[in-house]
Structure formats: structure tokens, C-alpha cells
């Protein structure tokens, strides 16, 4: 039996009310009247960091040694050359003798990656494959897309043991249907007429893919407990379900009121939300959309009842912070130049040979633990930092990224360069030992207290535009609920 062993999600902390967009850009484009909010990646997030976060959520409590491949799906990969999946694999501290690949160019890439992972497992090419999908698509100021697009990520672990949802069938369609496009140099989405996208795209291909799958496996739509299909247009989303004969409770919510169209992560995020509510025996149909469709059919097993509690879609939806200002959004998205001052302009070159040598520390947040006295320490030391020990070369590798910590002290610094001042940073004492200084993110100064619990989150530390380098490292995020 091959299928989903675990899943996780990531939705950034920031939400932008579409009303806020309308207030600022309505003078130019008053025509988009979409209710709700969209999820917005922070200034220190991109599809790599969000996919990593979803991966962390998915792997919570799972041994990482069994994973033989990592597939990353996105249409907003930070790098064209330097494999994005490789950065995520290093951040997740996966084994180095694994296969990594980027699935890209279409927003259906998330399900395509998942199907490829399934096939790798089925063919015994890999014991487990982690699929992480994330997108941060950008609509131009004043476009409809900036209302529709949201930022999010989802991750799925596929394997043959302890499967919570067996993947029982699939059916795909490929059309060169150019509703959205971005050429090599494009930062912003370009699209054709919206009516054509809705009437000749979503409402045609999704039913066609579903019909194809039902026919292929001799199933009836009424066999399914939940049907997932991505359509950001609320009216059309409902209409497709109605046309299929689905009662409203069988249609998975399209997440437009809180997240938005999350591109390559969209279908997987909705699938994760469906699994959070699923019971053993449920059949789930999931359909992605983008230059065609992938339709996937799952059957939930008894294993789902044993599942630990990941944060998932539900947990992430519950934690949010209104971004409040469109201008801040525009700065976070690098659409408006900001006076970052001389401190912000000064970025020293990234020593890539150093980065590779220190990849375990920098990307994986791995330090060491002294085998003599048991003291965890970051970054890796050869001589034990415990003043009562001082053992030399008695270290074993020790991962901090999955450890919680306590905020030992902090400050909110208005002098330090930041796109979201004040720059908040502090010292973290890890549960089980280890201390280091970290930036804090996704928090406000007034909510901080000495001793409060924090977790670690993979973030973009800096961008060196002149040299084309994104610097990644880990930051501390206050735990809003003790879990």
C-alpha cells in the first residue's frame, strides 16, 4: 500500500485584508470585489522557507533518515540555477545521499510532484519521499491577481508503511492553456481575459479530469466523502460542485477567505485541510488545476486515527496578524524601494565556500553535543564550551531546528537595518541545553517576555541583490500556544 504517511502545512502569519488593497488601489482598479483576506509571506520568507516550514510540520516526530528523495514544487523558485530543493533538503537536515528535484512552471506542479513521489515509492525506488510545495506569486499593483494570489505551503510524506491515506488512482490532463504566464524575466503574473479563464478553463477542465478518473476506475462521484478542487473564483467553485452533484459539505473549502490562490501549493493545501477532517474509510478526490489538471484519488486508513497532532492548515489559520498596510505589503514584496539606510545597503559578499563547509550549521541549524558532558552547543565546536568539561573532539551532531527554546533576553532595535523595524532579536536557551543569539520574527515587541517559549523557523536572512544571493538561516518565533 503506497500513499500519504504524513502531511503538514504552512500559512504565513501575515494576512492582508482585500479591503486594505481596495482602499489603497481602488482608485485604479475598483472592479475586484473579493471578500476576505489573503496570506502574505513576510519580508523574510519565500517559497523555499515556506516549503521548509511545511516540511518541518510534516516531519514532526518522524525519523528523517528514511527519506530517500525530496521533491519541491513551486512556480516562484528563488533560484534558476542552484537547486531550490537542495536548500530545503539541507534545511530539513535530510540525508545527503538522496534524490532532489524541483517541479515547476505550472501551478499543478504540486500534484505532479506528489504523483511522481508515489510512483517512486511504488517502484521501490525510494522508501519515503517528501513532497513540499510552496508559492508566492505576485500580481502587479492594481491587478486582480494581487487580490487572488496568496502565499502558502504544504508538505506530504509518501511511503508504504503506516499509510494514512492510500493513493488509489490518478488521471491527468495536459493543455497548453495560457491563462497565466511568466517568461524568464517576468516578476509579475500576466493573464488572459478572466471570463475565458473561468468559462473555458476551470469549469471545463476540472469536471473533465474528474469524469476521466471516475471512468478509469469505475467509480461514482457519490463514492467520495470529500472532493478537493482548486478554483479561486468563489462562484465558479460552487458551480462546479453543483454541476457534479455534490452536496456543499462534500466540497472542500477553497481557502479564498483566509489564504488565496496558493499556486503550486494550492491543491495540496486543500488536500491537507481535507485530511484533517477525514475518517477511516473516507474516499477523497483531489484535483489540481494549471495547464490541465491532475486528479488523485485517496482512501483514508485506520492509521489516521493514530496520527499525532501537526499544526496543519487548521493550526496555521488560527494564528494570524493583520498586515494592516498595503504599503508594508508592497515593501515586503519588493514592489516599492525603501530607504534602508547605509546599514541596509552594506551587504558583505557571501563566502560560498564557507557556506558549503558550514551548511549543517547555517542551513540545518545543527550543532553538536558533547559526548562527555552531554552539553548541546551551537554552532559546532571542537572544544566543549562547558567550562567544567572542555573535552576535545568528543562531539556528536545535534539538531536544534526541531527543539523548542526559551527567550533568555531580547531587544527591539530601531538602529539595525530591517525591512520591518524595529529589528527584534534575542538570546535563546534551548530545551535540553544550548544557547545562541537569533533574530526573532513573526512577533511584535509588546508580546515578548523573558522566558517565553519559542520555536525555530527557517527564514531568508538577507538578500544580496547585487550578487544574486539569498542568505538563509533560522529565526526564533514565539510559541503563541504551548503545545
Amino acid at each position, binding site marked *: 500500500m503506497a500513499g500519504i504517511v504524513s502531511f503538514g502545512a504552512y500559512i504565513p502569519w501575515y494576512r492582508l485584508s482585500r479591503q486594505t488593497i481596495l482602499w489603497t488601489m481602488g482608485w485604479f482598479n475598483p472592479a475586484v470585489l473579493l471578500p476576505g483576506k489573503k496570506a502574505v509571506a513576510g519580508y523574510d520568507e519565500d517559497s523555499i522557507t515556506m516549503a521548509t516550514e511545511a516540511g518541518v510540520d510534516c516531519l514532526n516526530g518522524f525519523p528523517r533518515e528514511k527519506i530517500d528523495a525530496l521533491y519541491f514544487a513551486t512556480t516562484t523558485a528563488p533560484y534558476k540555477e542552484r537547486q531550490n530543493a537542495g536548500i530545503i533538503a539541507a534545511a530539513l537536515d535530510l540525508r545527503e545521499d538522496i534524490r532532489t528535484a524541483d517541479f515547476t512552471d505550472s501551478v499543478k506542479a504540486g500534484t505532479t510532484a506528489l504523483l511522481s513521489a508515489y510512483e517512486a515509492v511504488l517502484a521501490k525506488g525510494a522508501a519515503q519521499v517528501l513532497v513540499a510545495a510552496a508559492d508566492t506569486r505576485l500580481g502587479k499593483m492594481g491587478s486582480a491577481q494581487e487580490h487572488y494570489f496568496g502565499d502558502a505551503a504544504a508538505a506530504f510524506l509518501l511511503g508504504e508503511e503506516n499509510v494514512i491515506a492510500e493513493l488509489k488512482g490518478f488521471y491527468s490532463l495536459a493543455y497548453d492553456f495560457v491563462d497565466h504566464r511568466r517568461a524568464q524575466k517576468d516578476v509579475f503574473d500576466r493573464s488572459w481575459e478572466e471570463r475565458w479563464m473561468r468559462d473555458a478553463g476551470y469549469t471545463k477542465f476540472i469536471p473533465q479530469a474528474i469524469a476521466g478518473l471516475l471512468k478509469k476506475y469505475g467509480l461514482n462521484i457519490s463514492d467520495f466523502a470529500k472532493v478537493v478542487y482548486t478554483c479561486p473564483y468563489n462562484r465558479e467553485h460552487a458551480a462546479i460542485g453543483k454541476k457534479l452533484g455534490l452536496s456543499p459539505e462534500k466540497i472542500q473549502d477553497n481557502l479564498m477567505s483566509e489564504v488565496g490562490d496558493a499556486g503550486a501549493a494550492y491543491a495540496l493545501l486543500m488536500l491537507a485541510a481535507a485530511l484533517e477532517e477525514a475518517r477511516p474509510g473516507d474516499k477523497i478526490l483531489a484535483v489540481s488545476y494549471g495547464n490541465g489538471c491532475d486528479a488523485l484519488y485517496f482512501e483514508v486508513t485506520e492509521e489516521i486515527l493514530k496520527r499525532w497532532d501537526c499544526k496543519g492548515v487548521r493550526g496555521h489559520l488560527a494564528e494570524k496578524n493583520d498586515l494592516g498596510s498595503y504599503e508594508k505589503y508592497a515593501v515586503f514584496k519588493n514592489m516599492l524601494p525603501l530607504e534602508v539606510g547605509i546599514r541596509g545597503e*552594506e551587504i558583505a559578499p557571501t563566502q560560498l565556500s564557507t557556506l558549503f563547509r558550514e551548511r549543517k550549521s547555517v542551513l540545518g541549524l545543527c550543532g553538536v553535543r558533547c559526548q562527555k558532558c552531554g552539553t548541546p552547543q551551537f554552532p559546532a*565546536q571542537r572544544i566543549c564550551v562547558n567550562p567544567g568539561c572542555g573535552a576535545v573532539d568528543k562531539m556528536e551532531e545535534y539538531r536544534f531546528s526541531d527543539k523548542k527554546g526559551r527567550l*533568555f533576553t531580547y531587544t527591539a532595535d530601531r538602529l539595525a537595518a530591517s525591512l520591518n523595524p524595529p529589528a527584534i532579536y534575542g538570546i535563546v536557551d534551548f530545551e535540553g541545553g544550548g544557547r545562541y543569539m537569533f533574530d526573532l520574527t513573526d512577533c511584535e515587541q509588546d508580546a515578548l517576555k523573558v522566558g517565553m517559549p519559542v520555536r525555530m523557523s527557517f527564514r531568508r536572512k538577507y538578500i544580496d541583490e547585487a550578487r544574486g544571493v539569498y542568505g538563509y538561516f533560522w529565526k526564533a518565533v514565539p510559541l503563541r500556544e504551548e503545545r
Partner: protein
Amino acid sequence: MAEGIKDKVAIVGMGCTQFGELWEKSAEDLMVEAFLEALEDAGIEKKDIQAAWLGTCFEEINVGKSALPLAMTLKLPFIPVTRTENFCATGSEAFRGACYAVASGAYDIVLALGVEKLKDTGYGGLPEFGSALGGKPRLIFPNVTAPGAFAMMATRYFDKYGLDPQEGKLTLAKISAKSHRNGALNPKAHLRREVTVEQIMKAPIIAWPLGLFDCCGVSDGAAAAIITRPEIAKKLRPDPVYVKALQIAASSGEELMYTGWDGAHVETTYRAAARAYQEAGIKNPREELSLIEVHDCFSITEMVTYEDLQISPRGRAKEDIDAGFYELGGQIPCQSDGGLKCFGHPIGASGLRMIYEVYKQLQGKAGPRQIKNPRLGLTHNLGGFPGMSVCSIVILGN
């Protein structure tokens, strides 16, 4: 055990420029001025100097690397010249090199000079530390500024000793107000204006909980000392000042990476001071010291230093601050010249500037801020951040 250098070296001449935003002066001008004052004070000629140490911190944007800027600016005649750097403790490091060279018997008369031209960097505050940290830390260390690094110690101190933020800030404000009063009396100081505790409390926040007046001046300036053996010193002037102790402690890494440190004090200060008291034969610093010049880069640094120097008991500096213990007329005046707060903080010069003040006070030449009959003075020069620091303690006496 090594016996140390107590009374083995003496200062016979010192110079210190005006500190401030000296837009019209170059680092070379400042070096020449400090040097000429020191020569004149010592009553010697340039040819008498046998070796020299230059202290400068942000060298790439200042005078340049190596000792050549000092040697070539002063036209030192092919003598050994060495550049030292140890973050904000740089000036003391130059002084240390010079003292040890004399104490070893290698030279008779040497020069230590520190200079910094911060106002050519384009920064308000100190320049970015990024490149100072090295390649690997840069990949993982937060974008820390000096006020932020020390603000974290205030957060910790307030939490540990149960001061609510307003109470804590008020105590810190009293420290800064005192230094402004003293600085107003010092013609060479960068900031010569008294400010009230209310003004300090209302100032904009730089790095919570520290506001603008919790931070020291960022200045240009230079200071110099001429050091020799006691027998030569006595021939040169009637009132040489003797080095009673000179200690430096550098962090071992345990503060930042091990969980033993409380974050509310600076371990290197405590260690260096304890060793210096031993070297100088001081049993009770609270009773024996006449004045102290501490590294008040931020008000909180001065506050924890009172405790790290074992003058105020742990957690109780506030009582001494409230009682005026460290005021100019108090039992141990601190920052009689205004300190880093108001005299200013040209990094490479600061350690020598502190020594300059103690030297002048011990000689009774401190003008309107003169302390009555001082016997022993201490300087505390701190580099780096509270959790990873270099501390120099110098004890001087007549």
C-alpha cells in the same frame, strides 16, 4: 605566580584631543595633536621614543591597516610600531603593549596612541559590524547593533532584579544625567550640555529599553600616553602616574553558547577586575578606589559595571545610584570627565582617554571637575558585546 607590573612602569606624558564631530579634522590631524600634547607634557623629544603602539578599530574606513599610518604621520624614525585592535578595548590594548614592553626592559620610553575618525563613516552610531565578525558568524549572527546588544542586558537585568521597565529606565536615566553634568564641566568633551532625567526618559527609543540618552556619543578623537620606567619618570617630572595593575579578560564563549551566564552582568569585567585588584593589592575596592572611569557605552553597561567591579553589591547598584555614590561629590566619582556618554567614544582612543582623565585627576590638574586628594583610579574599557567581550582594567596611582 607571575608578580605583575605593579609600579614597574609610569606614565610621564599624555595628550588628548577635543572629542566630537570634527568634520574639519582628519585622523592624521588628531594623531599629531594628541602626540604633540603628550610630548610637551612629558618634556621629551620625538627621538627619545623607542617604540610605539597604535590603537584603531574600524581601520578600513579610518586610517588604514597596519602601524604605518602612525609611523608615517608622526615621522617616527624607523622604530618598531605595532597596530593593536580589540573592539572597543583597542586603546587599552595599545597601552598594554607599550607598558609590557617597558616592563620587560626592552625599551626605556615608548608611545601608545589611539585614534578613531568615526564621523567619516557615514553612519549615525557605529558602522556595521558585519565584516568585523568574520565569514562564518556573518551567516548566522543577527543584525546586531551595539545598542541592541547592550539593551538585551538591560532586559535581562530588569527581569532578574524585578525592576519594572519604568523604574529601570529611571535608574539608568540618573546615570546619564550625572555624566552630562560632569561632561558640561569638561572643555574637551563632545557633549557639554546638561540634560534632565525627564528629558532622558522622554527621548526616542533606540533599542528597547535604551533611549537616545542611554547611548554614548559617537565621536572623532585621539589620545596618547608616553610610558617609561619609574627611575626615568622621576627624573622627567615630579608627579608621574604609576601603573598598579593592568589586566585583560576575553570571553571564552561560554556566555553566548553555554547556559551558565545570567545575562545581567559582564563576566569579563568581573574576571579582569578581580585579577587587577590582586595585582594592585586592593582588598576592598569600595573603600580603596578614589575614582573610576568605566566603559559607559550605554547606561546599562555603567550600571552592571558598578557591580562587576565589586563596588556595588549584585543587584543593588540602584541604591548607590540613588544615594549619589558615583556623583562628582560622591564617595567614588565615576565618569568625572563625562565618560563615553559625553566626552565621546572614538573607539581606538577611548581606553587612553580614560587613562588621561585618571592621570590628570591624580596630578590634580582636572580643573573644575577635580576630585579631592585622589589616590587610586581605575579604568574599565570594554569591547564587543556583553556575551562576547574583551575587558581591560587599568589601575593607576601616584
